[in-house]
């Protein structure tokens, strides 16, 4: 996906505006809210325990962020990274049928070949 530089913003002097947080606050807590932390733990945990490959989650995350970036500035919602994270999590859970009737956990599958 190409980077659309036309979406950057500029100040009065024509200088590109750098997100102030990039230069002033590098030690802020990594999660703004508990739901973000839990969404992170869920996505990583489900992948860890073999419910899907991390790449599959990553693909959904890229797709969600990509569609946000394609919407014109004045029409799209405020940037919130973890909303994309949650959207991706929902998608990957759905695609792998985790909540469907008869879903079998990886460790209980006959064909699993770990260890």
């Amino acid at each position, binding site marked *: 996906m190409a980077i659309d530089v036309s979406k950057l913003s500029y100040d009065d002097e024509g200088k590109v505006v*750098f997100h102030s947080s990039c230069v002033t606050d590098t030690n802020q807590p990594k999660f*703004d809210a*508990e*739901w973000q932390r839990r969404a992170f733990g869920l996505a990583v945990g*489900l992948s860890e*325990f073999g419910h899907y490959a991390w790449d599959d989650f990553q693909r959904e995350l890229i797709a969600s962020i990509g569609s946000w*970036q394609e919407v014109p500035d004045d029409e799209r919602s405020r940037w919130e990274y*973890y909303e994309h994270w949650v959207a991706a999590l929902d998608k990957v859970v759905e695609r792998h049928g985790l909540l469907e009737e008869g879903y079998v956990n990886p460790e209980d599958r006959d064909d699993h070949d770990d260890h």
Partner: protein
Amino acid sequence: MTEQFSYSADREPASAAQVRALEALLIEKGVITDTTVDKVLGYFESEMTPLNGQKIVARAWVDPEFAQLLAKDTPAAIAQLDLPEGMAGAEGEHIAAVLNEPGVHNVVICTLCSCFPWPVLGLPPYWYKDPVFRSRAAREPRVVLSELGVPLADDTEIRVWDSSGHSRWFVVPERPAGTEGWTEEQLAGLVTTESMIGVALANQPSAA
């Protein structure tokens, strides 16, 4: 307009409710237990921290052979150190180090989705995930680095590494002058997360 506004105001609680509902459903279906998420988070928050990256960098500074292996086969080099057991799938298997040297400065970005070498750097600082930071660092790294206060000579080559699902880069900054004879432990104290992303240099001995 009004509609949009009320939508944004509801976003935070809506996301929170969505995550809560999903976790509850997964527990109810027996896909995970009620302690799974806490265990995963606990592991990340206690074991996968920048302390790992600091130890790796410090070893590379005192051991040229290790540094060479680190550049060539990062996971193999990391395996030599006494670090927490990596979690398969936690993005550790694709970690790759890039080494700064005189005349070459490396910086790591992810233009797509904020891939990050968690096991060695912990979770990413939140600005790393900001689209403006990501796109600017890709387009004009020299300007971004100067705004961040990284002193680079004009003829220093800047290499921008775009993390992906298959290569999660981290930077081994240059060892600061005036640290001859320091122990690895002392050296590790000079290594910041920012310096391992390439948006800063390692701390000077006086700043430690």
